[in-house]
């Protein structure tokens, strides 16, 4: 078992305490809801576009530190990006938290790389990935509730 500090990094604890972009955009172009039935995490994402770029986005909901911090850091990481870039980030982030050999992606992910510790805690991968699955559903314009189960 790796050290808990590898999982609960200061950045993660900080975003858990004070999540960024928390709330709801009333004039959103896209939205989606996510649910992790195992832990009861619920998440809702609203997003505004400028052309094919993410102009603004917000998330709200309740969840564990990993899922809340992941949503918060994600909103920071994708603002201003094109939808294609966002899909690429999704794939990289997915590899980061699931694949031991994904070190190469860390540079590309910037601040989001703090979630690398999650890969040593298989039970927590769903927590880290929920926000990303929900964002992906919003972008793909799928409005059913995304579930990690």
């Amino acid at each position, binding site marked *: *078992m790796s050290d*808990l500090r590898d*999982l*609960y990094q200061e950045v993660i*604890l900080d975003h*858990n*305490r004070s999540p960024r972009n928390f709330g709801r955009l009333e004039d959103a172009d896209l939205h989606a809801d996510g649910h992790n*039935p*195992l*832990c*009861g*995490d*619920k998440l809702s994402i609203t997003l505004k576009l400028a052309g094919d770029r993410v102009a603004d986005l917000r998330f709200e909901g*309740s*969840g*564990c*530190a*990993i899922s*809340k911090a992941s949503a918060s850091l994600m909103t920071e990481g994708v603002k201003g990006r094109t939808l294609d870039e966002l899909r690429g980030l999704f794939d990289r982030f997915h590899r980061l938290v699931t694949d031991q050999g994904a070190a190469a992606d860390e540079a590309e992910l910037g601040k989001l790389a703090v979630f690398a510790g999650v890969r040593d*805690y298989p*039970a*927590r991968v769903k*927590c880290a990935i929920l926000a990303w699955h929900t964002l992906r559903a919003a972008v793909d314009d799928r409005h059913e509730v995304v579930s990690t189960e």
Partner: protein
Amino acid sequence: MSSVTASEPAVLDVARIRGQFPLLAQTVGGKPLAYLDNAATTQKPQPVLDTLARYYAAGNANIHRGVYALSQEATEAYEGARGKVAAFLNAAEPAEIVFTRNATEGINLVAQTFGRSRLGPGDEVVVSGMEHHSNIVPWQLVCEEKGARLRAAPFSDAGELLVDELEALLGPRTRLVSIVHMSNSLGTVNPVRRVVELAHRQGIPVLVDGAQAAYHMPVDVQAIGCDFYVVTGHKLYGPTGIGALYGRRALLEAMPPYQGGGDMIASVTFERTTWNELPHRFEAGTPHIAGAIGLGAAVDFITGVGFDAIVAHERRLLAYATEALTAVPGLRLVGTAADKASILSFVLEGVHPHDIGTIVDAEGVAIRTGHHCTQPVMDRLGVPATARASLAMYNTTEEVDQLVAALARVRELFG
């Protein structure tokens, strides 16, 4: 089983008990394991492990058909286990015990046979608001099919069943009451005798879900007066994949079969098939023979330790843990019924239960976090999830201390 001898003080030698559970001796990441997730499943004592190994090594044969000695011995061991479970629950006769995969299957069996044959449009099944999903979903399935309605009796903020409100739900359309004996997420022990009394007054049969209760307290189905009672082996210090349904003979005899196949028939032609006698009518196909025999060994083990000693030990431990956890800053117990047993559900201010679970695991403490398959309970109490420590006969005050110390580590990380 139900008769309590008051003369001898109930003392449980925990060290000796622990010595019989090989799994408990291990360490997790260098820390001694404190296994506090017994409501999910209990560990297995050596006599159960030995019984399983011995059966497969020297006793394995199919039952109820062979004329050779090995098959007859396997049949005797299997039917002997049924007798042990019948005695454990104080059923009137072994034929009232049907082996199932688990408690869930016991409920599904009743829903699909008794429920399906008795429910019609407008009829009702009454459960409580603190049921495990396994005592909700099987009824929803059959109610949907039959146009019947599932109703739930509420419970208080402390997690106590509101018996008057349950009584108010009973009426001429009620076909069955199905209620949990002991809540897996709150620890509440329900007044099942009283519920049976109220239901029977109106001629309504009652199923009691004993998955949690049966390893914490002596169960006497005749004293409770219930019509059905379900248990699962893996929470009785026995194997997974085996459980039992108790049903009163008159009800079982009137029920249509559950699954079709070998062993459940008396005779088969392409024109007409007749059903075997109880309880074989409800046990189609080769059953989990080893599991049933292992379950027999498990109830022997429990009876050997004795419920007097088990109840006294767990009661002391629950009181100790309740006090220790209540003293943790920011901790709130969820489920504080006056009559509760061996389960401590809690939330910690500012920390999600899932994070608690991961952090205490790093300290060797195994607890459950989440909704515990009781989402309506979580909704009712307005919490998304809880952390849950659940005790068994082999747990110690040191393990409770280990949990409390681990919670201090949670506070350290989360500030």
